[in-house]
C-alpha cells in the first residue's frame, strides 16, 4: 500500500510514518472507540433492497450493515481468498459424508431487529429462497449453488447442507455477501417483502432513507457480537459523480467511498489532505477481457485470435496503466494470489504472457500472415465508462497497431453494451468478469460454452472445456483442482484462444484517516457490514 507514488509536494518520509502508523493494526493503536456516525458516499442506488435478487455493490454498501450472514470473509483478513469465519454460526464445520455434508451450529440468543428470535429455520428459509427460488421470484446466484441437494434444519440451532457432490466452490459461495439471512415469518407473509423493506439481525438497524439521497442506520444494541458495532450509526449518501465523491471526502462530508478511486483522484486527495488521508490498495476480483466473436470471420480462426493476444504487452502495460487507471496485476483466468492461480513462471508459458514482447509480436504477425489477414481491420466494442474500460480499450488498440492491425473503438452506454454482448453483434468486444468472494472454481464459469455459461459471449461451443470445468468442480482434492485449472486456463487462453485476460483491476481506497477498523479486500462487495469500523476522533 504505497502512498508515496501519489505524492508531489508532500514529504514522503513524514507521510510514510503516518501511513505506517495507520496500517500498524489495532494492536498497535488505541482500542476501538465507541460512538460517532460514519458518512460515506455510494456511487449508485440499488433498484430493490433484496440481497438475494440484486447483483450491485450499490445494494451491499448501504444495506449489508443491516443483516447477518452465515459465514463471511474474515474482517481482520479480508484480502485472503480462503479465510472464512462464522457470522451466525458458532464454528466453521468440517464436512462429513465424503465432503458432501456441512453441519452448521447457529448461535443462540440472536434476535432480529423487531425482537423476534433468529433460528436455524430462518437460515434455511433464506437459503431455500436463494438456492431454490420459488416460482415468481428471482435469485441472482442460483448457479453458485448447483452442487446443493438440500438444506434443512433438524432443530432450532442446526443447519445441514447436503451436496450432490463434494465441491471446493461451496464454502466461498456460502460466504457471498448477498446471502442476507431473512426472517422466515416475513418470507412466509410475502416472499417479496424484503424488496422494499429491511429487517435483519445485523450490527445496524434501519433508521430511514430518502429515495435518491441517503440511507441511514443506527446501532443495534442487541447485536450478537459483544461490544460491536462501535459506531452509533452510519449514513450512506448517494452520489453518482466521481468528482463529487472525491470532493465529499476532501470536504469531510463523507469519510470514505468503498468502491474505489482512480490514481489521479487519490493523488489529488493526498496532496490536498496529507496526513488526514489514508490510502489502502488491493488487487481486485475484477478483470477486463477482450473476446473475439467466434462466429465472425476471420475470428473463427484460432490463429487470428491467438495473434491478438500475442500482440498485447501485459507486463509493460501493468507498469504504465496502473498510474492512470484502476488496473495493475498481470494474471491468468484466476484471481492473482489465489492458490489456484498460475505462478509467474506458469503464466509466461502462455501466449500473451511471454517475457519477450518482440518475439511475441513477431509470432503474432506470422500467424496473421498464415491466416491470410496481415492487414486485419476490425471494430472493438467497449463500454462507455472511463475507468478502466476506455483506458484499457485505447491501450489495446495501440498494442494491436504494433502488429499492423487497425482497430476502431466504439463506445456504448451500459444498456446497449450489454444488449450487444448478449446478441453477439460484434467483431471483438471488451468483456469483464467481476465477482464478489474469490471463488475461482465458479468464477471461471465465465469462459464456458455459450449454451452452458450465461456469461459467455464469444459465441463458441467447447465441450472439452466444459468437461474440465465440471470435473474440476466435482473434486475436493486441491492438487487435482490446480492441475485441472491449468488445463482449463491453457485451453481458454492458448489452445482454443477463446477469450483473453488483459489486466486485473486494482482497488484504491483513499479515506479519512480517522476511519479505523475497516480493511480493504479484493472485492467492493466484501467486508461491508461495518461491525468493526470505528472513528478515531
Amino acid at each position, binding site marked *: 500500500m504505497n502512498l508515496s507514488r501519489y505524492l508531489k509536494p508532500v514529504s514522503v518520509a513524514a507521510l510514510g510514518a503516518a501511513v505506517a502508523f495507520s496500517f500498524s493494526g489495532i494492536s498497535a493503536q488505541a482500542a476501538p472507540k465507541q460512538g460517532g456516525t460514519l458518512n460515506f458516499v455510494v456511487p449508485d442506488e440499488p433498484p430493490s433492497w433484496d440481497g438475494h435478487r440484486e447483483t450491485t455493490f450499490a445494494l451491499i454498501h448501504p444495506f449489508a450493515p443491516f443483516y447477518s450472514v452465515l459465514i463471511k470473509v474474515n474482517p481482520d483478513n479480508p484480502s485472503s481468498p480462503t479465510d472464512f469465519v462464522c457470522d451466525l454460526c458458532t464454528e466453521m464445520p468440517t464436512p462429513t459424508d465424503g465432503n458432501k455434508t456441512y453441519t452448521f451450529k447457529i448461535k443462540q440468543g440472536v434476535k432480529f431487529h423487531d425482537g423476534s428470535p433468529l433460528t436455524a429455520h430462518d437460515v434455511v428459509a433464506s437459503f431455500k429462497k436463494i438456492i431454490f427460488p420459488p416460482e415468481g421470484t428471482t435469485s441472482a446466484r442460483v448457479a453458485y449453488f448447483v452442487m446443493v441437494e438440500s438444506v434443512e434444519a433438524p432443530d432450532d440451532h442446526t443447519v445441514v447442507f447436503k451436496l450432490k457432490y463434494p465441491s471446493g466452490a461451496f464454502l466461498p459461495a456460502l460466504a457471498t455477501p448477498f446471502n442476507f439471512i431473512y426472517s422466515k415469518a416475513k418470507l412466509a407473509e410475502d416472499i417479496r417483502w424484503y*424488496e422494499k423493506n429491511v429487517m435483519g439481525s445485523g450490527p445496524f438497524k434501519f433508521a430511514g432513507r430518502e429515495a435518491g439521497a441517503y440511507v441511514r442506520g443506527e446501532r443495534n444494541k442487541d447485536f450478537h457480537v459483544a461490544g460491536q458495532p462501535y459506531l452509533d450509526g452510519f449514513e450512506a449518501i448517494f452520489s453518482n459523480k466521481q468528482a463529487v465523491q472525491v470532493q*465529499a471526502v476532501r470536504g469531510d462530508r463523507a469519510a470514505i467511498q468503498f468502491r474505489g478511486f482512480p490514481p489521479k483522484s487519490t493523488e489529488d486527495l493526498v496532496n490536498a489532505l496529507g496526513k488526514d488521508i489514508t490510502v489502502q490498495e488491493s488487487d481486485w476480483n475484477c478483470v477486463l477481457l477482450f473476446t473475439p466473436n467466434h462466429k465472425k470471420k476471420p475470428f473463427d480462426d484460432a490463429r487470428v485470435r491467438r495473434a491478438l493476444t500475442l500482440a498485447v504487452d501485459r507486463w509493460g502495460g501493468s507498469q504504465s496503466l496502473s498510474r492512470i487507471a484502476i488496473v495493475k496485476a498481470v494474471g491468468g483466468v484466476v484471481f492473482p494470489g489465489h492458490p489456484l492461480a498460475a505462478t509467474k513462471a506458469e503464466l509466461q508459458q502462455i501466449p500473451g504472457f511471454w517475457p519477450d514482447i518482440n518475439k511475441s509480436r513477431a509470432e503474432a504477425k506470422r500467424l496473421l500472415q498464415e491466416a491470410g489477414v496481415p492487414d486485419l481491420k476490425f471494430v472493438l466494442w467497449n463500454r462507455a465508462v472511463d475507468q478502466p474500460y476506455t483506458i484499457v480499450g485505447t491501450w489495446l488498440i495501440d498494442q494491436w497497431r504494433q502488429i499492423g492491425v487497425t482497430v476502431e473503438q466504439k463506445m456504448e452506454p451500459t444498456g446497449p453494451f450489454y444488449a450487444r454482448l448478449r446478441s453477439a453483434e460484434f467483431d471483438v468486444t471488451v468483456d469483464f468478469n467481476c465477482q464478489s468472494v474469490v471463488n475461482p472454481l465458479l468464477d471461471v464459469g465465465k469462459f464456458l460454452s455459450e449454451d452452458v455459461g450465461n456469461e459467455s459471449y464469444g459465441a463458441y461451443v467447447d465441450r472439452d472445456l466444459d468437461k474440465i470445468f465440471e470435473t474440476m468442480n466435482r473434486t475436493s482434492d486441491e492438487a487435482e483442482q490446480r492441475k485441472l485449472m491449468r488445463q482449463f486456463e491453457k485451453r481458454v487462453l492458448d489452445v482454443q484462444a477463446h477469450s483473453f485476460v488483459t489486466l486485473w483491476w486494482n482497488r484504491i481506497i483513499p479515506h479519512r484517516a480517522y476511519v479505523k477498523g475497516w480493511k480493504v479486500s479484493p472485492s467492493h462487495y466484501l467486508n461491508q457490514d461495518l461491525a468493526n469500523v470505528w472513528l478515531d476522533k
Partner: protein
Amino acid sequence: MYQYILKRLLLMIPTLLGAGLLVFLLLRLVPGDVCILRMTGGAGYVDPKAIDLCRSELGLDRSYAVQFLTFIWDFVRFDFGKSMWTGRPIVEEVGLRFELSLQIAIMATLTAILLAIPLGTISAVKQNTWIDYVVRGFSIAGIAMPSFWLGVLIILGLLITTKSVFGSPWMPPIKYVPIWVDPLYNLSMTIFPALATGYRYSAVATRMTRSALLEVLREDYVRTARAKGLIQKLIIRRHALGNALLPVVTIIGIEFAFLMGGLVVTEQVFNLNGLGKLFVASVTHHDYTMTQVLVMLVATIFVVTNFVVDIIYAWLDPRIRYK
C-alpha cells in the same frame, strides 16, 4: 380573453400527446432494457428466466401499441405507475425531488431578477461608459460560462480557501434537508447552486433588459417626458422600465421552466437530489415509465409557464388583447 385561455388550455393536450409519443418511441429505440441492466451488475450469472419474469412483471413483453396506450390512459387518470427500476410509485419518487428542484428554480430566478434588472438598467442608462463595459463583460462571462463548470469552481474555491484560512476544508452539504427543518443547513446547500445557475440565467436577462431599455429610451414619449422636465430616474421607473420588461418576462419565464428538470449537470455537481438527477438516473437505468413521466412533467411545466407568461404579458401591456 376567456376564449383565448380555453383555447390555450385545449392546445396543451395535443402538445403533451406529441411529447409523450416522441419520448415513448425514442426510449424504445435504444437497445437494452431495464431487466438486463438490473441483473447484469457484475457480469455475474443471469438466469434468462429471471429476465423473462422481470419483463413480464413490467409489461415489457406486451406490444408497443399496448404499452403506449396504457401509458397515455394512466397519465390521463393521473396514475403514473411505478418506477421500473425501484418498483416504487413514481409520484413518491418525483414528489421528493420536485420540492428541491422548485426551491433551486425559485432561488435562481430571484438571483437572476435581482441581478439582471438593476444591472441591465444601469448598463443601458450609462451606455458606452466604463460601467456599461463592466456590466456587459460580466454578462458575457455569464453566458459563456456553463453553470456546472462554475459550480465546480465554486466548490473547489471553497475547499481551497477554507483550508488555507481555517486549516480545514469546507464544502456545501451533499445531503438535502428541507428549509423548514433546518433553514441554515438548507441554505448552505442551496445558495451555491442557486448562485451558479442564477448568474448564468441573469446574464441572458441582463442583456435583454439592456437592449430592450435602450430601445424604449429612444421612443418619442420618453423624449417628450424629458422635454417636460421629468428627471431621469422617474422617466426610467415610470415610463421606460415597464415597457422594457416585456421581453425580459418572457426570457425569465422560459428559463424558469428550464430550471425545473433541466439542471441535470448542475444537480450532479452539487449532488442535489432533484428532478435533473432523477432524469439522468432514469435514462441510465432504462426506466421507461419514470423517463416518460418526467418528460411529460417538464413538457407540462413548459407549456403552463409559457401560458402564464402570455397572460402576464397581457396584464403588463394593456394594448395586448387575446382573442
